[in-house]
C-alpha cells in the first residue's frame, strides 16, 4: 500500500487530472448504482497459475466521418494522436512499455507497419518494437489479445495495443497491366525497349483499381451480405431503423452526459481542436423511412441510415500484468479475461461472429448470459445486430448450425450498447475493438457491474468475443 502511494506520488503530473476525473465520476454516479455494486457478490474469474492481466487505460481520438476534419492527415498521424493521448493520460514513462501492437485494415502503402511509424512519432522510445496486425473489423481486438498473450507468456509486462483506420484516403492502384509495364520499364536497358514498353500502354490500362469493398472469396459487398442476413432472419426495415435510432439517441445522451471519457482532444494540424465524435445524428423514424435501400434494390432493407458509416479514427489501450500495474501505482480499470476467435461461412454467415463467439467465450469463463452486466457488441449494421440477436435466441439455429444443444439467449436491451455503438459513434475498422473494451471497462465502473462482454463480427466470416471483469474498487 505504501509503495502504491509512493508510486502515485511519483506520477504527480497526472494526479490532478486523475483526481478531477474520479471526482467527477463519483459525483455523477447515482446512489442506487453504488448500492448495486455492494449487492453484487459474484465470484472473480481469477484462476490459479493464470496471470491477471489488466486494462490500465484506454483512449481514442474523436471518431469523425471520413472526409471531414482529418481529411488531410495520414493514418499514422491519427494513431500518433491516440498514442500521445494515452501517454498523457497515464503519464507512463516512455521506455516502460515493452511492446506496441496496432491493428489496421486498409494499409497506407508508405506506412505499412503503421504501429512503428506512429510509435516513433508519438515520442515513445525507439527501443520499443512494434508491429501491425490485420483481421478486418476485429484488428484491434487482435492487437489487444496479442498483447494479452505476450504478457501471459511472461514475455512482456506492459504493452500498448491500438487500432487505426483512415478512410479519407485509401491507396488506389494502377491496373495490373499498367503496373507490369511500369515495373518492366524500371528494368528496361535501352531507349528502344523503353519506347516499346511505353507504346504498349493502352487507354484501358489507365483505369485505376480501387481497394476492394467486396469480400474476396465471394465478391459480395458487406452491405449486400448484411441485407441478405437480415432477410434470412426476417428482420424488418422498421426494426433496423429503430435500432439505428436507438444507437444514435443513446450515443447522443452519453456524449451530452460526458460519459465518453475515452475520447481525447486532438489538435489537428492546420485545423481546429477536435474533441467530439461527429457522426452522432439522432434522426426520426419518418426521416429514416424515406431513405432508399443502399445495396439490394429495390426491396432491400439496409440503408445508409441503419449502417455504420466510413470513419477516420484511432484508439489505444495500455495493457499490463496486474503486478506491474500495481507496482507502478496504477489503479487498473478492468481485468481482461477469456477471449475467443471464431470463424464461419463467409457468404451466408459473414456477420454472425457474435452469435458464434458469445456462447463459446461464456463457456470458457464458466458464465451464463445472466451473469453479464454490460454488453458491448460491434454494430456493423442494425440488420446485422438484429440478426445476431435472433440467431442467439434460436434453438434451431444453435442446433443446426453451431452444433450446440440449445440457444445461448439474447442480451437484455437495458444492458446492451447503452452509450451508442458503431452505428452512431462511427466505425474506424481497425480501431473499434479498443473502443468496445474501454467502453465496457468504463461502463462497469459507472454502472457497477462485474462482468462485461465484448463481441464483434468481421469480414471473412470471423468473429471475436471477450469477457471483461471489473477491477474491484
Amino acid at each position, binding site marked *: 500500500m505504501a509503495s502504491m502511494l509512493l508510486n502515485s506520488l511519483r506520477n504527480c503530473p497526472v494526479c490532478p487530472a486523475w483526481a478531477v476525473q474520479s471526482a467527477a465520476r463519483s459525483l455523477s454516479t447515482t446512489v442506487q448504482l453504488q448500492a448495486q455494486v455492494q449487492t453484487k457478490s459474484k465470484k472473480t474469474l481469477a484462476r490459479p497459475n493464470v496471470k491477471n492481466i489488466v486494462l490500465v487505460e484506454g483512449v481514442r481520438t474523436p471518431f469523425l466521418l471520413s472526409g471531414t476534419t482529418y481529411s488531410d492527415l495520414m493514418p499514422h498521424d491519427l494513431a500518433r494522436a491516440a498514442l500521445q493521448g494515452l501517454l498523457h493520460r497515464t503519464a507512463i514513462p516512455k521506455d516502460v512499455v515493452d511492446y506496441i501492437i496496432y491493428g489496421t485494415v486498409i494499409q497506407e502503402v508508405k506506412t505499412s507497419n503503421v504501429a512503428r511509424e506512429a510509435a516513433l512519432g508519438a515520442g515513445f522510445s525507439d527501443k520499443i518494437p512494434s508491429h501491425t496486425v490485420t483481421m478486418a473489423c476485429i484488428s484491434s481486438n487482435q492487437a489487444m489479445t496479442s498483447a494479452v498473450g505476450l504478457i501471459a507468456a511472461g514475455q512482456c509486462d506492459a504493452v500498448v495495443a491500438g487500432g487505426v483506420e483512415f478512410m479519407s484516403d485509401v491507396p488506389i492502384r494502377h491496373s495490373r497491366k499498367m503496373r507490369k509495364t511500369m515495373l518492366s520499364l524500371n528494368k528496361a536497358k535501352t531507349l528502344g525497349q523503353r519506347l516499346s514498353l511505353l507504346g504498349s500502354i493502352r487507354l484501358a490500362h489507365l483505369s485505376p483499381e480501387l481497394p476492394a469493398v467486396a469480400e474476396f472469396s*465471394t465478391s459480395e459487398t458487406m452491405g449486400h451480405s448484411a441485407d441478405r442476413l437480415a432477410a*434470412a432472419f426476417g428482420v424488418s426495415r422498421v426494426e433496423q431503423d429503430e435500432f439505428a435510432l436507438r444507437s444514435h439517441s443513446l450515443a447522443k445522451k452519453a456524449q451530452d452526459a460526458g460519459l465518453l471519457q475515452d475520447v481525447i482532444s486532438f489538435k489537428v494540424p492546420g485545423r481546429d481542436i477536435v474533441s467530439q465524435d461527429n457522426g452522432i445524428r439522432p434522426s426520426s423514424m419518418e426521416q429514416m423511412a424515406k431513405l432508399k435501400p443502399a445495396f439490394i434494390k429495390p426491396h432491400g432493407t439496409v440503408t445508409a441510415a441503419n449502417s455504420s458509416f466510413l470513419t477516420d479514427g484511432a484508439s489505444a489501450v495500455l495493457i499490463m500484468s496486474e503486478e506491474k500495474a500495481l507496482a507502478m501505482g496504477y489503479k487498473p480499470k478492468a481485468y481482461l479475461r477469456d477471449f475467443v476467435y471464431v470463424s464461419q461461412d463467409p457468404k451466408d454467415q459473414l456477420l454472425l461472429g457474435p452469435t458464434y463467439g458469445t456462447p463459446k467465450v461464456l463457456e470458457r469463463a464458466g458464465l451464463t448470459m445472466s451473469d453479464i452486466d454490460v454488453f458491448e457488441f460491434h454494430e456493423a449494421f442494425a440488420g446485422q445486430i438484429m440478426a445476431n440477436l435472433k440467431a442467439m435466441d*434460436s434453438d434451431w*439455429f444453435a442446433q443446426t448450425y453451431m452444433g450446440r444443444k440449445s440457444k445461448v439467449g439474447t442480451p437484455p436491451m437495458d444492458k446492451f450498447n447503452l452509450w451508442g455503438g458503431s452505428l452512431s459513434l462511427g466505425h474506424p475498422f481497425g480501431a473499434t475493438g479498443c473502443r468496445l473494451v474501454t467502453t465496457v471497462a468504463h461502463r462497469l465502473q459507472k454502472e457497477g457491474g462485474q462482468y462485461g462482454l465484448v463481441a464483434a463480427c468481421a469480414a471473412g466470416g470471423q468473429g471475436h468475443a471477450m469477457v471483461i471483469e471489473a477491477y474491484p474498487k
Partner: protein
Amino acid sequence: LLTKDRLRIGELCCQICLVTACCLLCPYLAGTHVNYEVKGDVAVVRINDPNSKVNTLSIQMQKELTDVMNEVWSNNAVQSAVLISTKPGCFIAGADINMIEGCKTAEEVTQLSQEGQNIFEKIEKSPKPIVAAINGSCLGAGLEFVIACQYRIATKSKKTVLGTPEVMLGLLPGAGGTQRLPKMVGLPSAFDMMLTGRNIRADKAKKMGLVHQLVDTLGPGLKSPEERTIEYLEEIAIECARGIVNKKIPLSKEKGMMQKLQDYIMSFEMVRNQIYKTVHGKVMKQSKGLYPAPLKIIECVKAGIEQGPIPGYLAESQNFGQLAKTTESHALIGLYHGQVTCKKNRFGAPQKEVKTLAILGAGLMGAGIAQVTVDKGVHTILKDTTVSGLARGEQQVFKGFNDKTKKRNITSFERDSILSNLTGQLDYSGFEKADMVIEAVFEDINIKHKVLKEIEAVIPPHCIFASNTSALPIKEIAAASKRPDKVIGMHYFSPVDKMQLLEIITTEQTSKDTTASAVAVGLKQGKVIIVVGDGPGFYTTRCLAPMLAEAVRVLQEGVDPKKLDALTTGFGFPVGAATLADEVGLDVAAHVAEDLGKAFGSRFGGGNVEVLKTMVDMGFKGRKSGKGCYVYQPGLKVRDVNPDIEEILEKYKMTPNPAVSSDSDVQYRLVSRFVNEAVLCLQEGILSSPVEGDIGAVFGLGFPPCLGGPFRFVDAFGADKLVEKMRRYEEVYGNQFTPCQLLLDHANDSSKKFHK
C-alpha cells in the same frame, strides 16, 4: 375427384373457422397440387406436385390451376395474385411428357396445345395482375406460363434457370411460347432460346428482359436456407403485386435508345425476312434438315409476326400436334427417358462411399477423370510417372476450372478451394487411403498388369481397381489380380469433361458391390452410365470398329474424306467418320481394329488395316499429331484433306461395286454394320437392355440422336428393310454384312420391337 376436393376444402374451412373465425377473410382453397391463400388483398397461389420431385403441368395440375385462378378472379377481396412453387429447386419444369405421349393422334396433341393456349391467354388478360415468383427450374410450359403473367421475379439461385427445351425433344413451345417470346425478348434472342433450348440463368434473364426483378438467395436464418428463400421471394412478390395495383410499379419499362433503335429496324419487313432466312440457313446447316422441330419453330414465329395472333397460335398448336407424332420426337423423347434411367444406380447403394479416388496416368483421360471428380468433394490423387506428364495433367485440370471462372460459373475462390482437393504426385504415397483407383495408363496388357500388381501392394483391402480401357478385356486385366472381385472396367470418353457417357464393364467375377460403387462414382461425376458385360471392345468400341473398318474401305474405294464426312453427318452423326477417326487417333483406331480383328475374325474386316498402319507409320496419328485424314493447323478452323494420304489410298485402292456405292448405300453400309453389331451385343448378353444400347451409342459414339439409337432405329426403320439392305451388301462383301440372329428374328416378326 372434384367433389372430394370440395369436401376437403369444406373441412379445412371449418377448421379455420373454429380456430380463427376469419373464414370469410382468408379463403383457403386446397387441392393436392395447387392451393391458394389470401394475404391481405393478394392471393398467393402455391404449386407443389406431391407425387414427384419436380412440378410438371400435368392434366391434374392444369385443372387445379384453372379452378384456383377462377376462384381468384371471382374473389372480390383479391386485387392481385402471386404464383409461386413451394418445391425447392423447381418452379415448373415443363409439361408432363407422359401426357403428350399418351395422346393417340396429332389432333389430340393439338387439342392439348390449344387448351394450354387458352389457359395462358386468360392469365395474360387477367384483370388482376399476376406476379410469377420463380425459384428453381422454369422450363418449357413453365416458362410459357410465366411469360403470360404480368410480372416476373426470379431468385438468383444457381438452380433458377429459364428456357424452352422443347426443341431437344423434337417439339416446340406449344402453349403460346412461339408467339409471346419474340415480343418479350426480341426476335434474335427468342430464336436463340427456342432453337438451342439452352437454359438461361436468372441474371442473364434479367438483362434480356425476360424477368423484371431479381431476388437474392438467403443463407440460414431461423429456417433452412431453401425454405426461407422461398418465403422471402413470396414476401417480395406480394409487395410487388401490391405495388403494381397501386401503380407504384410500372408494368411497361421505358424503352432505352438501343431498344427503340432495334424496334425501328425490326419494323421493316425486309429486315425480318432477312432474319428468318439467316436463321433458317443456320438451322439447315446444323441439322442437315433431319430435325423438323427447329424449322416448325421458325414457321410459327413467322406466322405470328407476319400474319397476326390468330394464324400464329393456330400454326403453333397444329405444328405442335404434328411434331409430337414424328419419329424424330419419339426418338428424342426416348433418349430423354433413357437418360433418366441411366442416371440411376440399379445396383443399390455401395457399402462404402468413395472418398479418396486415385487416378494413374495424368494424360488427357486421367486428367479429365480428375477434373470431373475433384469438384464433387472427393479427394483426388493424380499420379504420373514423370514430372512433365504430371504438370501437363494438373494444368489441364486447372484450365478446366479456370475456364469456368472466366465464364463466371464459379468464382476464383471456388476454383481454388476445389483444386485443394487434388494431389498430384509421382509415387504411391497416400494410396493406402484410396477407396478406388482408376488407371488410365497406356493400352498395353503388360503395362496394365505391372501397374495392377504395384497398386495391389499398396492399397487397402476394400479398394476397387478400375481400368479405363477402351478395348482390352477386363477379364484379362483381372487375371493378374489377387482379388478379381474388386476389378472393374470404367470406360470414359474423351474429352471426359464434355462427353456424358461412362461405360462400366463387369466381368463374371466382379462383385455387385464393386459395380454399385463404380456406378455411384460415375453418377457423382455427372455421367450417364451403361453397365455392360466383358468382351473384346465391350459395347461401344465393338460397335464403332466395324463402322470405321467400313469407312476405311469407303476411302479405299475412292471416296475422299470430305465426302465421307458429308455422308455420315448427312445421316445425322454429329461428327463425320473421317473426322471421328482423327479425333479418336488413327493409332488407337489401328490398334483397336487389329485387336478386334483378331478376336472376331473376318466379320470385322472391310478396309485394310494396313491403310491405318501406314498412316501411323508416316506420323499421321490424327488431330493430336497435327495430321491425319486432315491437316490441322493451330488457330485455323478450316482444314484441308491431308494430301499425303492420297498416295496411301492409291496404293490400297479398291474398285467400288456400283451396285452398292450410291451415296445412300454408302451410308447404310456404314450404319448397318454399326447397328448389326449393337444388336449382336444384345443377343450375346453384353448389353442388358436396348435402352442402354441406345444411350451408349448416342452419348458415347454420336449415333444420330434423331434416330434415337441403333435399337430405336431398327424399330422405326423396320428390321426387315434393314435385313434386306444388308443381304444386298452381303452378296458383294460377304459375312461383314450377315445380319445377326436377333435382327433376323425381328425381321421375321414385325410385331417384335426393341422398345415397347
